[in-house]
């Protein structure tokens, strides 16, 4: 039984990959493929949040910061690629005579951009995580701090309109590393890259969760002091998970840009960062598939329910959130475990903290 379980998860990832990479391009229209690509980007971020929050207990409320690092690195490269040897149009508009800001210059290079998408979030989250976890900052303080950073970055971008495009954001990308973005075949390629990266991230956390590191991470979440007494440094354990989640957020942000075609501070600020968390909580933060599926469900709800019922959609999301927190604290992915438990004992006891913790163990696979 226990030996079989990992292979069930791996099979699940296989089925998921088949649906995303094989079935979806055949049955969905270009518009919905593009939307699905966007949900995949949020799902990549969500997988990282699942790792940091679900397994590591760090409530990362400011993933928008790392999302922004990847997204703006990519957007700057695509803007320069579109502009060619000219200065991007929006900069001419605000200050016709000033040159290209110096920090844009390296993003002309495709290699530098790809490197920046990977290294920037690792460096920033590494320094930030080291400073915070070594000082044993945790719980609400950590959450508030990370959220404040997202707000600060969004405000900074809004107020530097000539350097970053400000509130209007960066848009109108024509090329993606030499490929014409308007071509439907290339759009599909970009989607497949995003979906493929999501599958890779799922495989990575699947491997992490079943490794000794995964055990240590959960132990740190549930009893940090005990882990310390056993001779481990919880700060290092948390740092690794935090850096990995930042990296995933950055990758999600980088793919968001060619798929959606525009990036603005509103996509990285407080509200956006909370929405990223909402999907994870909805799906089940500690499970393997919960975060990704939850984020995709929230994205889908925004596109389709937001269309038919613009005023009502946010209320539905809020209500769903309350219901899940009240009755299914471990998300929708804990439902099967709930049913199984209910079948075993017809009258389940009211969920105690211990029972909830046991359930959390149950959804880990």
């Amino acid at each position: 039984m226990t030996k079989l379980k990992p292979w069930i998860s791996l099979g699940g990832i296989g089925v998921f990959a088949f649906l995303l990479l094989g079935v979806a391009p055949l049955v969905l229209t270009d518009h919905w493929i593009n939307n699905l690509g966007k949900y995949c980007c949020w799902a990549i971020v969500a997988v990282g949040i699942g790792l940091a929050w679900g397994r590591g207990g760090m409530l990362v409320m400011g993933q928008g910061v790392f999302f922004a690092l990847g997204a703006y690195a990519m957007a700057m490269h695509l803007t320069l690629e579109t502009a060619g040897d000219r200065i991007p149009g929006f900069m001419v508009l605000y200050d016709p005579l000033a040159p290209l800001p110096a920090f844009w210059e390296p993003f002309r290079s495709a290699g530098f951009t790809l490197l920046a998408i990977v290294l920037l979030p690792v460096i920033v989250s590494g320094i930030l995580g080291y400073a915070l976890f070594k000082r044993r900052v945790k719980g609400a303080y950590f959450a508030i701090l990370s959220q404040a950073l997202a707000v600060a970055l969004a405000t900074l971008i809004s107020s530097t309109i000539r350097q970053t495009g400000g509130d209007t954001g960066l848009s109108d990308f024509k090329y993606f590393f030499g490929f014409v973005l308007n071509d439907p075949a290339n759009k599909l390629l970009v989607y497949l890259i995003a979906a493929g990266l999501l599958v890779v991230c799922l495989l990575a956390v699947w491997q992490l969760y079943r490794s000794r590191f995964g055990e240590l991470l959960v132990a740190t979440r549930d009893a940090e002091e005990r882990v310390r007494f056993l001779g481990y440094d919880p700060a290092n354990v948390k740092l690794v998970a935090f850096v990995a989640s930042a990296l995933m957020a950055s990758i999600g942000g980088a793919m968001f840009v060619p798929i959606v075609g525009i990036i603005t501070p509103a996509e990285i600020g407080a509200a956006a960062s909370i929405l990223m968390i909402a999907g994870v909580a909805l799906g089940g933060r500690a499970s393997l598939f919960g975060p990704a599926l939850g984020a995709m469900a929230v994205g889908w709800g925004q596109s389709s329910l937001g269309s038919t019922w613009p005023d009502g959609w946010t209320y539905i999301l809020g209500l769903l959130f309350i219901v899940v927190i009240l009755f299914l604290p471990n998300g929708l992915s804990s439902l099967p475990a709930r049913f199984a438990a209910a079948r075993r004992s017809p009258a389940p006891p009211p969920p105690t903290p211990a029972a909830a913790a046991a359930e959390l163990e149950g959804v880990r696979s």
Partner: protein
Amino acid sequence: MSTTSKRLRTLTALGALGTTVALVLAGCGARAGDSASAGGTSAAPSCVDTSGDSIKLGFLNSLTGGMAISEKTVSNVLHMAADEINAGGGILGKKIAYIQEDGATDWPTFAEKTEKLLTQDCVAAVFGGWTSSSRKAVKPVVEKHNGLFFYPVQYEGLESSPNIYYTGATTNQQIIPAMDFLATKGVKRLFLAGSDYVFPRTANAIIKLYAAKLGIQIVGEEYVPLDKDDWTSQVAKIVAAKPDFIFNTINGSSNVGFIKAYYDAGLNARTTPIISVSIAEEEAPAMGHEVTGHYASWNYFQSLKTPTNPKFIESWKKYPNSSGVTSDPMEAAYISLYLYKALVEAAGSFDVDKVNAAAKSNAITFDAPEGKVTLDGDNHHISKPGHIGQINPNNQFDIVWASDKFIEPDPYLEGYDWFPADIRKQLVDAAG
């Protein structure tokens, strides 16, 4: 050990599969520099269905979020115009069936919904938007799918697109008349206050160039983000700079905070009047403070005496969800739908290329509430009269200045020698 190597093999296989798929696809996509890549030639053929007795149009405005308060009015007046046109027999005999989408004050959402309207709902044209940011998000999408977008709000100019029609004022129809008015008032010291986004930044860049020509000194320039309401420290700078006049390009509810800080600092309409380009009949009563005596530059005012204005005001007052007053952006939105009707009927077709060809005649006109407007087929803007109004105690505007004739649209300011030619060229190239 064997499980590890198996796992590795699985991972390698998956990676190889992904790479293969990517390479196969890369083979069929267009690369930069291909002949097909230059224009919109890769756009799929239009899916608009013109066989039935109705035609689908898309309306796109923010019904939620910060801009909803302004944009709902535009959305409602579009519904009213559609009802009127349907009552009169529709467009080319087809009734308008509109699909309303919510842009949610989020620019990527505007892009997504435009794509949905054009490719999923197969609408013949999209109407709406308000902020320049939303228009800039929509622009690449309509260009990619060779769709049509009708944008109804005054904006900063320096833009044109074969797929967008602009029924609000460009800078030479609103900003430049306002500056001409200030020059006739003998203004020497001008302060610029604006929200921090595309429109105010660009408008002020143009104002500074023209002020130099007119001999008006710009004594200060301050910006506050769209969603921030605290203007206290910026107004302190205005007090210190002692301007004769304030040029206000603040948009939305941030105006309320500005007006409050302005009066709190002891400024008033007699000593330091404000000329605004985004406070109209709708906004004036919502300022939370009496704003009598201040000015606004628009093309349309509810107080205009034209043959068609009384009917427009009357219909609007009777319309459900009406605010009771008419304003420039609503009137421009009203024009946009009628202009589309005139274009389609001149073209005899809903086809985008045929509609654009019909526009080239420069003979498409509409008897609008602001007067008879004519469409410029090359830049897709319309001729407009320039007006300056002064707010009276009823929050209506007394017309204190009018341009001597309709002003032809000139988005790139080609007819103005003070606008540097090299900057114009850079902008056209960048838009290219």
